[in-house]
């Protein structure tokens, strides 16, 4: 019965991972543009990856954490309103949340370039009220990159949160009221704990792709905001140093995995997922 699933995982998960791991420990030989990979337990690829690109690795995780937290703060009230307060507008609001995602990722990101342009109205408006110094800019800053990450991934926070909030039995909330609980207490004691699976799933769905993202950094960022995804992309497609790129990918994957495990421990959500 589970054979199809196993075959699928074997072909599309296990094999590529093994191949990536092998490449990350290989030495490139042959001609530069028609390279042949030679497996050689070359752990130097990993030490090189760390020593050359630790800034980008740190920056990626910092951006991803900030983006995840902001997504959570913005998405929770929205999901709450959709689940409990929207009434007959529920489907409409959900539709509006999903609507922008009918347009491709790339186009939406490039649109922000126009909105945040140095001579654009956002920058001049912020400058006029003194929120930006006169020579300040938004585009090509860390804020633009983090903003892009939030914008592009927030839907993956809203939807799981909405699902977990929507699933809460309203009779439980009524029960808290019957027992003279304040709104705050019924939220912290009942709603929040019951929505933790949504928080957990949403955070992972935002954090993991955000940490590996390179589109936002390359279109909205500058030379000071490169993320690890940009480095991997460049190593694969421009420099064509496949072992280095593979080693960086493995590093990214392992760090995310460790982070996710720690997060699972901290939230104690093993039985929730």
């Amino acid at each position: 019965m589970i054979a199809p699933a196993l075959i699928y995982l074997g072909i599309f998960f296990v094999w590529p991972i093994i191949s990536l791991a092998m490449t990350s420990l290989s030495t490139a030989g042959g001609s530069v543009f028609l390279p042949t990979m030679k497996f050689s337990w070359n752990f130097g690829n990993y030490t090189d990856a760390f020593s050359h690109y630790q800034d980008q690795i740190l920056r990626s995780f910092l951006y991803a954490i900030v983006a995840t937290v902001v997504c959570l703060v913005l998405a929770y009230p929205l999901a709450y309103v959709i689940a409990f307060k929207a009434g007959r507008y529920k489907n409409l609001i959900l539709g509006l949340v999903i609507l922008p995602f009918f347009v491709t990722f790339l186009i939406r990101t490039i649109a922000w370039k126009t909105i945040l342009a140095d001579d654009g109205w956002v920058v001049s408006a912020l400058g006029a009220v003194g929120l930006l110094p006169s020579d300040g800019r938004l585009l090509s800053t860390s804020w633009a990159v983090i903003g892009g990450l939030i914008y592009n991934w927030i839907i993956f926070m809203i939807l799981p949160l909405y699902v977990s909030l929507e699933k809460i039995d309203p009779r439980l909330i009524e029960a808290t009221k019957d027992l003279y609980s304040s709104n705050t207490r019924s939220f912290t004691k009942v709603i929040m704990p019951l929505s933790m699976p949504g928080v957990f799933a949403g955070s992972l769905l935002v954090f993991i792709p955000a940490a590996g993202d390179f589109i936002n950094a390359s279109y909205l960022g500058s030379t000071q905001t490169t993320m690890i995804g940009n480095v991997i992309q460049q190593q694969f497609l421009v420099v064509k140093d496949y072992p280095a790129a593979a080693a960086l990918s493995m590093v990214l994957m392992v760090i995310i995995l460790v982070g996710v495990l720690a997060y699972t421990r901290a939230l104690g959500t093993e039985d929730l997922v």
Partner: protein
Amino acid sequence: MPNEIDPRFLARLASNRTSRRRFIGGSAAAAAAAVLGPAFLAACSSDSGGGGDEEASDSLRISNWPAYMAPDFVKGFQDKEGITVDYKEDLNDNEEWFAKVKEPLQRKQDIGSDLAVPTTFMAVRLQQLGFLSELNHANIPNIDNLRPDLLEASVDPGRKFSAPYMSGFVGLGYNRAATGRDIKGIDDLWDPAFKGRVSLFSDTQDALGMIMMSQGSSIDKPDEASVQKAIDLVREEKDKGQIRRFTGNDYLDDLAAGNLVVAQAYSGDVVQLQADNPDVQFIIPESGGTTFVDTMVIPNTTQHQDWAEKWINYIYDRANYAKLVSFVQYIPVLSDMTDELAKVDPEAAKNPLINPPKEMLAKAKGWPALSDEQLQKFNTAYAAVTGA
């Protein structure tokens, strides 16, 4: 008449050559490739006839960049030579195209084209890998019309493998309204007034050539030390926050929007942009700039070497070539084009970015052929700055 529209402007809109070739063709394909990954490239190649034992083609198959051709030009050739041409605009990106054709070429299988127009560095790579057919000059008498500097270029002395198609400058583009002054050379790039509003190319040769020249290094025989010296300068300026972005061909929209005030630029792009925004200027830095040349090559899997050579010969006829240049607005690779160009398009003949005077040509140099190892070394060193 208020509704009168400059016909040249319309022609530019219609042709939109540079922006499609350099901008959309470059950045969008690169972005798509970056997003979708190598699978996308592989998928692209599957429908383009990379297969093995195909029946002999009864037409001359040409692969060129989008909108890099004049209307009716192909028809003119067909009528004159009686050869059917299967003209395809399937070159979008040198590296992407290479990824597509390298496997069949290695196996000596037909790649679906008898003539392709990669940029010089790619032509050199193909030749070093032994993928190209030698040109039979007996079939190309018009090759004598080539500019002498190109005919004897060190990348391919005597033009045995690659026949130049169009050329362009790599220099500086700037927005005169934003800079408030004329830009003269590389030092202007580092002016603190332009902090965070300057871009360099991410392509190693296009970016570093003019910087090396500004440091007194020569690119004729580039050594690691002089390349590294240029890279160190770029790193220093990057760390200061002077450089906003390392760009592919996507500097154009930032320059037009005013996000960039000075950018490393391709001449053809600026000719294009000037139609919309006359404030945008192009200069070759005082210390020198570089040129790029797209070249016609014949893969050794061709089925119609003679026909491909006839095509090259037809293009190298000055009257024919003038029609081509007036439409695509790049720099001619043939010498003494002024008269023929003036007959077809007097405006283009006067534009120094299309018909550059000798002094201007003298300021621009082409890179020599670099070995794979050299190029890889330089690429890796520069990527450590641009990618980090």
